[in-house]
C-alpha cells in the first residue's frame, strides 16, 4: 500500500487523456479566433449601434425561446418518460426531427404553418390581422422550433434516470400526479433540466438559418447576432470574427454564472 496524496483531483488516466484531448479540440479553435482577431479594429465595431441592438435582441429572444421550450418541452419529456401513452417512441422520434432538419428548411416549414398563406397563419391574418413572420415573435418561434428538441431529449434522459419510487411516496401522501410533478419530480431532475436549458439557450443564441428565413433580417426587430455576423461576413470578414467574439464573451459570461450549485448535487465525497 503506497500512500498517495489526498485531494489530487484523482482523475484516472484513461479519463484524463481523452478529457484533455477533447477540451483542447473544443478550446483551441476559440484560441485561434482570439489570437487572429483584429483587436485594433474592435472598438469601432462595438460602437456601432446595430451591434448593441443585435446583442440585446439575441439575448432576449434566446431567453424567451428557452422559457417557451421549458414550458412546452418539459411536459413533452414527462409524457415520453412517464406516461403509458402508446406510440411514445414515434412521438420521441417526431419531436427529435427538427434537430435534423436543415434550419433553412425549418424556416420554410414554419412559413407553411404560420406564414400568411400557412395552415394557421392564413386564418390568423384574415380574421385578426395578425402576421407572425418578420416580427420579433417570429425570431422567438424559429429559435424555439430549433432549440426545444434539445431540451426535450435531455429532460427525458434525466427523468428516466430518476428514481420513480419517490413519486410513489408522494402519491401515498396525497399528491396527485401534477402536484407530484411540481413538488417532487421536477426538483429531483433539476440538474437535468438545467443542462437541457443550457443546451437550448445556447442553440437558440446561435440560431441562424431558420431565423433569417422565417423572421428576416431587420435591424432592431429580427437581426440577431448570428445574422449580424452573417452580414458582416459579406462586408468585412474580420468584423465578423469580432462580432462572434462578442457573442462568445457574452454567452461565456452567462454560462459562468451557472455555478455548480445551480446544477444540483455536487461532486462525490
Amino acid at each position, binding site marked *: 500500500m503506497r500512500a498517495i496524496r489526498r485531494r489530487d483531483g484523482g482523475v484516472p488516466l484513461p479519463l484524463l487523456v481523452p478529457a484533455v484531448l477533447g477540451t483542447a479540440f473544443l478550446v483551441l479553435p476559440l484560441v485561434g479566433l482570439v489570437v487572429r482577431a483584429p483587436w485594433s479594429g474592435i472598438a469601432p465595431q462595438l460602437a456601432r449601434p446595430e451591434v448593441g441592438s443585435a446583442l440585446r435582441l439575441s439575448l432576449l429572444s434566446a431567453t424567451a425561446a428557452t422559457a417557451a421550450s421549458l414550458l412546452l418541452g418539459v411536459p413533452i419529456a414527462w409524457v415520453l418518460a412517464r406516461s403509458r401513452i402508446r406510440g411514445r417512441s414515434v412521438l420521441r422520434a417526431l419531436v427529435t426531427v427538427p434537430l435534423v432538419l436543415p434550419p433553412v428548411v425549418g424556416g420554410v416549414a414554419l412559413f407553411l404553418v404560420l*406564414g400568411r398563406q400557412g395552415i394557421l397563419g392564413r386564418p390568423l391574418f384574415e380574421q385578426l390581422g395578425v402576421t407572425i413572420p*418578420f416580427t420579433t415573435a417570429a425570431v422567438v418561434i424559429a429559435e424555439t422550433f430549433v432549440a426545444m428538441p434539445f431540451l426535450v431529449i435531455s429532460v427525458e434522459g434525466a427523468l428516466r434516470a430518476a428514481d420513480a419510487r419517490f413519486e410513489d411516496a408522494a402519491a401515498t401522501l396525497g399528491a396527485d400526479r401534477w402536484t407530484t410533478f411540481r413538488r417532487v419530480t421536477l426538483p429531483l431532475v433539476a440538474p437535468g433540466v438545467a443542462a437541457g436549458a443550457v443546451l437550448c439557450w445556447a442553440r437558440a443564441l446561435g440560431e441562424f438559418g431558420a431565423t433569417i428565413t422565417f423572421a*428576416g433580417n431587420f435591424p432592431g426587430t429580427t437581426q440577431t447576432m448570428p445574422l449580424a455576423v452573417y*452580414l458582416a461576413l459579406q*462586408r468585412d*470578414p474580420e468584423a465578423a470574427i469580432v462580432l462572434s467574439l462578442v457573442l462568445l464573451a457574452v454567452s461565456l459570461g452567462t454560462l459562468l454564472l451557472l455555478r455548480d450549485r445551480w446544477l444540483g448535487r455536487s461532486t462525490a465525497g
Partner: protein
Amino acid sequence: AGPATGGTGTVPRSSDDGLTGTVTVFAAASLTDVFTTLGAQLERDNPQLTVQFNFAGSSALAAQLVQGAPADVFASANPQQMAVVTEAGLAAAEPAVFAGNVLEIAVPAGNPAGVTGLADFADPDLTLALCAADVPCGAAASAVFADAGITPRPDTEEEDVKAALTKVQLGEVDAALVYATDVRAAGADVEGIPFPQAEREVNEYPICALAAAPAPAGARAFVDLVTSDAGRSALVAAGFRAP
C-alpha cells in the same frame, strides 16, 4: 415601428416635404454596403421617410416574398430568383437590371501558388475552390470554363461566393473563382486576377418594386435612386459593372 407593422400599418403619402412612412427593401446580401449608403441618402432627401433593409441570400428572399412577406422592393443578385418572384405575379413592373458583376480569380495576398490564369484551374496539385453549378457564380464559372475549353479540377464546390472567398482569405485554397466585387470587399488579404473570358458571362442584378408594396411611392423612389446615375456611380465604386 417593426418592419411588418410598418409595412402594413402606415400608408405613406406624398406631401410637399417629400415621402413619408417606411419603405422596406429586400436585397441580396452582396448589396449590403452600397444599398445601406443609398438608403441613407434617400432618407436624407426625404426626412420623413425611413428605409429599412432585409439582407439575405436571394433565394431566401424570394422564398419569403412568395410566402407573402410585406416588402416594397426586391433586388436580386441573379435573374433566376427574380424570375421566381415575377412568376408568382408579385412584381409591380418589369424588373430592371441595375448592375452587373463579372468573375475574377481570387488568390491569397502575395499569390503564393503563382496562379496566373484560368488554365491553372486544371492543375490537380493546386487546392482550388469554385462555386457549385447550382448557384449563379457556379453557372457562370461553368460557362467560362466551357468557353475556354478547360476542365477544372476543384477541391470544393462552394455554396456561395463568400464561402469560397473566406477560404482564399485564410490561405486555405490557392485560388477561387469569385465575383470582382467580392475581391474588392475582401481588402488586402485577397488579390484579384481578372481574365478576358469573364466579360462574356456578366451576372445581372435585377430590381423591381413589388405589386403588394405597402409604400408604392417610396418603392418607386428607391428603385429610381438605384437606377439613377448617382446609384450607378455608387455601384461602380463598389466594383459592380454598369448594366
